[in-house]
């Protein structure tokens, strides 16, 4: 598993509102990369009273080498789980960066600049699985299906270490749901390209 995939520094920003588990997403991705995938990872989060109930944002840098500058410069991936978070950060994305968002919670700006857009009803899927609270892990599965920054096995291990023990099965189901939805979208677009 060590040393796979990423050729250079990758930057990810997770944005939503307080309580959706944006920080947990960053923590899982960072832990997966740093502890289980032989990479360096730096996670930082919005902090303080302004982050409660309002916009919550987590930044995660992943790199095959030592990370000096610890903050997002231009994200390779922006994950939007709330309208406010998306609106606040959408202009900062890399020109060819990926935008992943929850389609029931975010309406895209007519001026959205990146073309690399993928949507998922993450919260609705989570509700179908029985608990809305795992929407973040559905989104993380979706992220994993659409990127190769961190090995899937590493993310699975990090989920198991980061969520409360009785919820591991539910969280893994949520991850699988998001990942298979991403793969079905990719297959769909591949089929479209062929026809």
């Amino acid at each position: 598993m060590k040393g796979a995939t990423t050729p250079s520094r990758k930057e990810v920003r997770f944005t939503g509102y307080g309580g959706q588990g944006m920080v947990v997403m960053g923590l899982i991705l960072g832990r997966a990369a740093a502890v289980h995938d032989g990479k360096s990872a730096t996670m930082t989060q919005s902090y303080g009273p302004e982050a409660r109930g309002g916009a919550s944002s987590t930044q995660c840098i992943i790199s095959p080498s030592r990370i000096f500058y610890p903050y997002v410069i231009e994200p390779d991936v922006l994950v939007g789980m709330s309208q406010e978070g998306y609106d606040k950060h959408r202009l900062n994305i890399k020109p060819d960066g990926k935008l992943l968002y929850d389609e029931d919670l975010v309406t895209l700006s007519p001026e959205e600049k990146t073309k690399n857009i993928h949507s998922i009803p993450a919260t609705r899927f989570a509700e179908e699985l029985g608990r809305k609270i795992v929407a973040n892990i559905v989104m993380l599965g979706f992220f994993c299906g659409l990127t190769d920054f961190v090995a899937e096995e590493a993310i699975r291990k990090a989920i198991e270490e980061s969520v409360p023990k009785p919820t591991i099965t539910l969280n893994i189901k949520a991850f699988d749901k998001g990942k298979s939805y991403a793969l079905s979208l990719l297959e769909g677009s591949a089929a479209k390209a062929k026809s």
Partner: protein
Amino acid sequence: MGEERRVLTGEHFLTGDHACAEGGMAAGCMFFGGYPITPSTEIAERMSLRLPEVGGIFIQMEDEMASMNSILGAAWGGWKSMTCTSGPGFSLMMENLGLGIVLETPTVLVNIQRGGPSTGLPTLSGQADMMQAKWGSHGDYEIIALAPNSPQEIFDHTIKAFNLAEQYRTPVLVMSDESVGHMTEKVIIPPREELKLVPRNYTKKKPGEYLPFECGEDEIPEMVKAGDGYKIHITGLTHDKRGYPDISAEAQDWMVRHLMNKIQKNKKKIIEVERINMDDAEVVVVSYGISSRVAHRGMDLARKTGVKVGMLRLITVWPFPDYMIKELAERVKAFVTVELNFGQIALEVERYVAGKAKCYLVPHAGGDVHKPEDIAEAIKEAAK
């Protein structure tokens, strides 16, 4: 549960604050007396959970003055002790930091710096307590202060701080910042048997022969602890080798010189720096803590435009590596100091450069970090 919970050997993904607490645990800390204050609170919180696991004591004191005193008392009681604070809490600890220095008490004070003055920016970063670290308590003294720039380093440096405290019988400061305290990265905690810990230097002299402030050439007195039968007296008043008050210019001269010499004579053993790209450097960036990581990017950007720039990263900020700056000033064109304040360590750099090279400062009021581009511009300007 017991001692087997002391060192959490393994690879972790931890915030700087939590890594700091684990550093204290690994170093053998048994007592934490503190008063929670953002952004250092998570250190106290973790210690409140961790210390009882090994039979240690966590006390939330009534304020920072009492917190500082409690860790001095714990040290004289025979335990390794620490506290943490930030912003106004650091100001409140200054009086009894002085007591710790004059009693020559081994203990560790961690400051996760935030923006000031006053209540300032509780949740945002700053590095404007660096001169307070040196001069904040009244009177003349020397201090040891470390400036970690990552969660791994704050773990390592907290252990190092405990070791230096024992080695030099003095309070040691860990001067971190909100950015490092709240950043999460991989932290490797080594197996217990690989940790290099300095035990307390207890005297072998018998009660009656031992004097609490007597020392040899190295200026470092030996320790005792309460309950071992040594009847001693220690006081914040100027004192003689016995620890008895001596209100005279002669005693003052002996005591203050001793406090200064203890650190100054040993500074080459204490000081640690990291030299980056220094072989061909014509411009030297001087930085520490979070700013050193931001400045690293500034340095890389400037290098891409052909500037021969390197970095002297201060791991130990106090005692200041004056001899290194003097030596570099003889051969480089300019120094660029990068810190989250309006020029504190920059003043030290200037005074040891003493006009032999140009000195620049990239100031910042705190609340955020520098823009790496601004640092790169300053480097390019300095290289002209």
